[in-house]
C-alpha cells in the first residue's frame, strides 16, 4: 500500500484512552470520512452514526463498511448542520467525536 495512516498507532491509542466506556453507547462521529475510525468505534460501541459532507468519502465508507457492523452503524453524506436540521428532535448521543472536522 503506497500510503498508510497512523503508522505509529498514536491516534488510535489516544482516541480510546480519551473515550469514555463505549459498551452499549450511542456515538456520533462528525467527519467520519471513509470510516477509518468509525469501524474501530463501532466494534466497541452500541451504535455509531457517522456523518461527512463528502459524498465521495461516504460512498467509500459504505463500500468498506464491515458486514458484522452493518446492524449498528449508519453513514450519511451530511454536514453537522444538515444532519441536525433533518432530525429536528434527534435521539441524543453519549459521545460526539469531532474527528478532524472542527
Amino acid at each position, binding site marked *: 500500500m*503506497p*500510503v*498508510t*495512516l*497512523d*503508522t*505509529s498507532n*498514536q*491516534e488510535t*491509542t*489516544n*482516541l480510546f484512552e*480519551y*473515550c*469514555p466506556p463505549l459498551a452499549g453507547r*450511542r456515538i*456520533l462521529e*462528525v467527519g467520519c470520512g471513509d470510516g477509518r475510525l468509525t469501524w474501530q468505534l463501532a466494534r466497541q460501541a452500541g451504535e455509531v452514526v457517522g456523518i461527512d459532507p463528502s459524498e465521495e468519502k461516504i460512498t467509500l465508507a459504505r463500500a468498506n463498511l464491515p458486514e458484522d457492523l452493518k446492524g449498528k452503524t449508519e453513514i450519511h453524506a451530511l454536514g*453537522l*448542520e444538515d444532519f*441536525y436540521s433533518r432530525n429536528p428532535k*434527534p435521539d*441524543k*448521543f*453519549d*459521545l*460526539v*467525536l*469531532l*474527528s*478532524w*472536522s*472542527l
Partner: protein
Amino acid sequence: MVHALELVRDLLRPGGKLLDLHPTGEPPIIGFVTSSRRTELGRLQETDGFIEYAQANHALAHALEAGWFKVERQGEFIFTVQADNIASLSQFLSENWKDSLLMPQIVEWAEQLAPLHSGSHIELSERVQITRFRLPGRIS
C-alpha cells in the same frame, strides 16, 4: 464553528462527552526514513497558513467561555502518514489535503535520496490536539 459546537451541545445526552481531535497548526514535518536514519526534509505548508486550526481553537474557547462545556482532559499526539515515496505522498495530499503545499525543494531532495537507499519511505508527522469535554453540571 461556534454554531457547530452549539449543535453538539444539543445532541448530547446529560452526562455525554465531546471528544475533539484537530491538528495544532504546527506545520507537519516531512522525513526521509531509512533502516538506520531519519532525515528531516522540511515542513508541509498550507495555502492559508493553517488558519482553520486557530479558528477551531477560537471556537472552542468561545464554547468554554459561554459555559457550554468543561474540559476534562487535554493532550497531544503525533499522527504519522507513511508513504512509499514522495510521489505517493504528493498524490495522497492532492486527494485528501487540497490546501497543502509540498515545496519543490522537498520533493527534489527526496527524489535525490531515494535511489541511494533501498527500502526507504517518506513519513509525514503532524501534531494533533485531543480534548475531552463534558457538559457542565454533575460530573459523570
